[in-house]
C-alpha cells in the first residue's frame, strides 16, 4: 500500500498528527473553541474534536467573518487543527490559514483518500507538497 502522496501547498508548514475525516464542509464557528468539538447539528463529525488533528474535509462554508473568527478562537485555545487537507480551496479558508499560520494543502493524489482512515498518523509537509502516512491505526 502506498504511503506517500503528492499535494499542493496552500499555506506553509510541516506537521504530524492524527487524521480526522469529514465528508461535510466545515464552518469553524460551529466548533466549540474550548474543546474543539463540532457542535453543528446534523454534521457528520458532530461531537468529534478537530483539536490538533490533521483535518481532511472538502472545504469551508459559512460567512467569511465567522470562518476566520472560529478558526482564531480554536487557535487561541490551542484546539485548532494542526493541518487542513482539503479539496475545494476558497479564499476565505485559505487566507485564514495563511494568516493564522496553519499548514494547508489541496490536490492530494486521489488514492490518498482511499488509503486513510480516522486515527492514522500522517505527516503533512505543505512546503514540499507531500503527505506521508506514518502509522495506520
Amino acid at each position, binding site marked *: 500500500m502506498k504511503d506517500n502522496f503528492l499535494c499542493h501547498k496552500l499555506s506553509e508548514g510541516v506537521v504530524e498528527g492524527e487524521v480526522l475525516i469529514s465528508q461535510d464542509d466545515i464552518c469553524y464557528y460551529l466548533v466549540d473553541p474550548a474543546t474543539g468539538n463540532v457542535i453543528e447539528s446534523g454534521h457528520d463529525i458532530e461531537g468529534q474534536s478537530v483539536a490538533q488533528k490533521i483535518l481532511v474535509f472538502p472545504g469551508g462554508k459559512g*460567512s467569511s467573518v465567522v*470562518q*476566520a473568527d472560529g*478558526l482564531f478562537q480554536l487557535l487561541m485555545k490551542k484546539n485548532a487543527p494542526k493541518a487542513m487537507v482539503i479539496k475545494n*480551496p*476558497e479564499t476565505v479558508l485559505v487566507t485564514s490559514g*495563511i*494568516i*493564522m499560520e496553519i499548514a494547508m494543502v489541496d490536490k492530494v493524489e486521489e488514492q490518498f483518500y482511499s488509503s486513510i482512515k480516522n486515527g492514522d498518523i500522517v505527516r503533512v509537509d505543505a512546503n514540499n507538497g507531500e503527505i506521508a502516512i506514518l502509522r495506520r491505526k
Partner: protein
Amino acid sequence: MELTQMEQEMLAGKHGEGVALAMKVQVATGEAFGAARMVPITRAHVALSNQDADTWFAEKMAKAGAKCKIAPTVNPGFSLKYFCGHCQSQKAMTAEDVDMMHRTHNVYKQLGAVLTYNCTPYLGSNIPQFKEVIGFSESSATPYVNAVWGARSNRESSLSALCAAITGLVPEYGLLLDENRKGDILVEVQADMDKDFAYQMLGYMGKKIGPGIPVFVGIAKRPTPEALMNLGAQLNTSGAYGMYHIVGVTPEAPTLEAAFGGKEPARKVVITNQDLKEIRDTISHAPGRIDFALFGCPHFSINQIKQVADIVQGQKLAVDLWIMTSANNKYLAERMGLKEILNAAGADIVEETCMDQPCWHFLKGKVGITDSPKLAYYPKKRGINFVIRDLETSVQAALKGEVE
C-alpha cells in the same frame, strides 16, 4: 508570481511594515491559487466582525503603521449608542464586550475606513461598476457584486479584504478571470419564486446544489434587490459561493450558452416548491409561541422597513420586534414617518448592528421568529432559536405572539 518593482518594494518593507505584512499574505494567497500577478483594485469592503480574529489582525496592521490606500466600507459590530442605554442588553453584556466595540471602532477609524457599519454595501454605499476589479468580503456581498453588478471579486475574508484595502492590490486568480466565471451547475427552478422569501430558501439549497457556480433558469420575473440579497446571503450560509448566474437577468448571462461559456453543465439540479418547503421545515424551530421577532440579517432595506410598518400600522405587537439596518435607513425611516408607526406598535429600528453580537445575549433561551435562515443559523450557538417564516407571516406572528 511575478511582482513589479513597486510590488517587490512593498513586500520588502520599503512602504512600511503594515504594507509588507499585507503583501506577504496576499502573495502567499496568490501562490496558493496559481495567480500570475497582482492587479489594482478600486474598491473594497471589509466584513469587520468586532470579534477577536478580526480586531486582532486590524490592530496588528495599525500598529505596523498601515493606512488604507483604498478606503473600504465596513460591516456592523453593534451600536454602542443603541444598546448601552437598554438595560436588558446592558446586563447581558460584559465590560469586555463594550470595550471590544470601542477597540474595533478606533482601529478602523485609524486605518482610514469608511465607517458605514452596514452589511449590504452592494445595495448602497459601495457599488462597483461592470468589470471593476475589487476586494470584497462579507458572504452576501461577493455573490452580489459578481453576479448582479458584474464586478470582479474573489470571496475575500475580512482579513484578506483588509490586506487588499491596504495594498490597493489583489492577486489575480479565481473570479477575477473571465474563464472562471462561467457556470458549472444548471439549477432548474420549478418552484414559485413569487416572494423575496422564496430566495432565502433557494439560497439555502447549497447542499443540493453542491460546489461550483450555479446557473439558475426558470426565474421568469426579475428578482428584487432584496430577493438577490437573500439569495446570496443564504447561499453562503449553506455553502460557499462567490458567483452565480440567472439567465436573462444577471449581466453575464444574457443566454444559457453565455452563462456556461459554451461548456456543458457538470451537474443538473431541479428545485421544486417541495424542496423549499422541506428545507424550511428542517431549519426552522417548531412553530408555537414566540418571544420576539428579529429582522435584518442582512440589514433591511428601506422598502423592507416600509413593508413591516405597513403591516403593523395602528396595531400593537404582542412581542418585541427589532429591525436591524443602516444608520441612513433609520434616518430615512424617521423622516418618512415609518419609525413613528413602528414605535407606536412596539417595534424598534436598531442601527449598525449585526445579529451575531453580544448585545443580543439577553435573548438567550428564547424563541424568536425571522425571515432569514442566516439570522437563525449562528445564534443557535448562544441558545437562541428561531422559527423561520416569510416576512409577512413573521410580522403577523409578532402581532399575535405565536405562529402556526
